[in-house]
């Protein structure tokens, strides 16, 4: 898992609408990256739904939120609509899991990212990380706000 203080690896991935999004697009703002195993898996839905409910509070602290999984962007679009969320979802599809690997989140052998959080500061450095003990558990939103406080 990438450590706080390290430069956040840059990336350019497609979002749910097929548009290319880069980490550098967020320079000057805090960014919370939510790596998650996959669209439509039960726990992932709960996690992103819970975080959607506190996006206002995150925005008040200058934090933007994105999700990254190995799913294709068509799946992301369907998942976003299914959950009724507006969180940008990025597709770490090809090469599969490359960005998750760069952040130390990829689970080799399982083929998807672990449930991890990476807070990137305004200068593009990793400010904080959280790694779930297993993909079936996710941190409550309170854990994020503890890190921001």
């Amino acid at each position, binding site marked *: 898992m990438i450590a706080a203080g390290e430069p956040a690896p840059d990336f350019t991935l497609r979002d749910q609408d097929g548009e290319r999004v880069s980490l550098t697009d967020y320079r000057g703002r805090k960014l919370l990256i939510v790596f998650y195993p996959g669209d439509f898996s039960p726990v992932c839905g709960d996690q992103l*739904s*819970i975080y*959607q*409910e506190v996006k*206002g509070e995150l925005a*008040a602290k200058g934090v933007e939120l994105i999700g990254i999984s190995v799913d294709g962007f068509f799946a992301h679009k369907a998942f976003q609509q299914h*959950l*009724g969320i507006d969180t940008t979802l990025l597709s770490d599809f090809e090469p599969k899991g490359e960005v998750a690997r760069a952040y130390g989140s990829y689970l080799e052998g399982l083929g998807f990212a672990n449930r991890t959080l990476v807070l990137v500061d305004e200068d593009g450095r990793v400010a904080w990380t959280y790694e779930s003990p297993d993909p079936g558990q996710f941190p409550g*939103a309170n854990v994020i*706000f503890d890190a921001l406080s």
Partner: protein
Amino acid sequence: MSDLTSAAVPPLGPDDHLRGEGRAVVVYADLGCPHCAAAWAEIAAGPDRVAFRHFPVASKHPRSPALHAAAEAAGRQGRFFEMVDSLYGDRGRVDDPHLWERAELLGLELERFEADRRSAAVAARVRRDFESGIRAGVTSTPAVYSLA
């Protein structure tokens, strides 16, 4: 803006919605959630003293905020758990006309029910519970906490 850092489940307070006798448990539940509906019959029939706290996840269940507001408004006329039981017992009819019908069946004063459920005070009351759940680390519903 609210503080959402970690905090313990708040102890029972004077405006908590309580039903039953015995060991106190706090239940964070979403009135639009099928898992909560399935669990509610067992929770309600159990031996514990249940405190219901609002935890609507609107993105997942778009009608949840309206249902929680309806329950809270019913509570202001003394029929909170009756409305919760009604909403979990019949999840298929939850548009506004159905809520009015439920309110009438419970003997509520309809104008007052409408004014209350659309009020900022009721919204704040629901949001207060929700935020306490977030701070306690609720990640799915129903979330049940036993209070010592």
